[in-house]
């Protein structure tokens, strides 16, 4: 556990902060990339989040909750980046896969496109919950803690988001079926 590093960093130890930040930077960038769907915005959000962590670390009450707290700052930075620009890149790059998919379901470019479009149609709140839960693997109570909202709100957002994504995939399936029937 990084508790000792957190305590050191809270007291201004830059070496300790460097170790904490280095262990999380890639993950932060990946998560913010998925939330914002824009790599340059994600870089800015990651940078701001890490700086906020350094600046506000003495205010963290319980060093053992560093991760939840740091995710909160990351999410806040993502929201700040999203609010500063209306620019949503129309053509995000598809993320290259270097390992087999978990199932056949994702083996088609069509599915990826449908997912991407469906995902980008979600609100920022909903995308964030999906990424925190299904990408960072945070349980719902930790997502709630990171967002500062009740668990019920997280569950509701997640339900809505997944329903919307399922609808996006279903629409693709129906389209494919119709084409096959013609």
């Amino acid at each position, binding site marked *: 556990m990084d508790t000792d590093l957190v305590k050191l960093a809270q007291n201004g130890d830059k070496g300790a902060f460097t170790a904490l930040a280095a262990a999380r930077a890639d993950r932060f960038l990946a998560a913010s990339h*998925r939330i914002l769907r824009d790599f340059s915005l994600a870089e800015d959000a990651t940078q701001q989040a890490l700086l906020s962590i*350094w*600046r506000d670390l003495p*205010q963290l009450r319980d060093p053992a909750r560093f991760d939840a707290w740091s995710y*909160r700052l990351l999410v806040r*930075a993502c929201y700040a980046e999203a609010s500063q620009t209306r620019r949503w890149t129309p053509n995000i790059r598809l993320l290259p896969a270097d390992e087999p998919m978990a199932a056949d379901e994702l083996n088609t470019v069509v*599915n990826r496109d449908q997912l991407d479009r469906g995902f980008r149609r979600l609100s920022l709140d909903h995308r964030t919950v999906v990424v925190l839960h*299904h990408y960072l693997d945070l349980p719902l109570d930790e997502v709630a803690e990171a967002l*500062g909202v009740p668990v019920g709100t997280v569950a509701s957002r997640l339900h809505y988001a997944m329903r919307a994504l399922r609808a996006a995939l279903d629409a693709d399936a129906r389209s494919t079926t119709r084409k096959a029937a013609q």
Partner: protein
Amino acid sequence: MSADRDVTTRIVRSWLHEDAHEDADRILNLVLDEIDTTPQRRANWLARRFPPMNSNVVRFALVAAVVVLVAVVGFQYLGNANTGDPVPSETSQPSTTPVASGEPSAPADGSLPVGSSHILWDQSQDGATPNLGIKITVTIPASGWFGDAKEGTLGKNGNVNAPDGAGLIVFARTNDLLVGSGDVYVYGDPCHWASTKPDSPVTTLDEAMAALSAQTSRDASTPVDFTHDGYAGKYINLHVPDDAVFSDCDEGQFRTFVQGDDAPRYAQDPGQFDLLRVLDVNGQLVIFDVTHYAGTPESVLDELSAIVESATLEYAP
């Protein structure tokens, strides 16, 4: 249906976990360069006592208080506070304190502009999260008041010490689990607090008043009901005995209560009066601790009263 959900979840998770090789080294190096010139913010939840003042500021406060006398509009409930028994009105409303027309200009000394709305306490979270607790706004009725929203404090010319200081400090629980303050524990004996912290916090107005009334080593008035900004409350006057010797107390502190584990409220000086106005805001206790002394000018008490009366509360669950 459940199977559909499982399939969707698997697809979404697979899609999210596709390896994009995000490499944050460049960002990390930028951050590490920047922290050299980025100071850390201190932990505001540790400081729950007015900061000590130097004598020059105290002297300045005396002079300023006299000057301000002529400009003060009277407010009533602290009128007899020089006796240590300030009594607020039983039904107080948001302030009708005159507000200067136009945008109040900020004094050069850093004090709060007369007539300005000042955020006394704000637990709201910007950006991603909604408000997670109480936001309290007050109106500044006269010159010479210094405050810090992060600290939840106001002081007349920064002087909150004996023999003539006056100030206000607020304690309000936040719902934020990560950075917020916790429950309030009232010590059985403010002087020997280390061994008299109760196992349970006070969670209601009645519990708070009962615990405060029962404190040893000090004097307390009878609690009185009141309402403020639509919320029910009770107030009580506490007094630190004039002959109290803080150095004889645990760690040299005369503590009334502690919020959470690390935000104690402890007295500035012997002879201190604390009017504790405790509100029940949707089940959460909000404490306005109005501090003064026998030598505090009545005009300053009027200003302080006006500030407290003007407080408006916003609550976010």
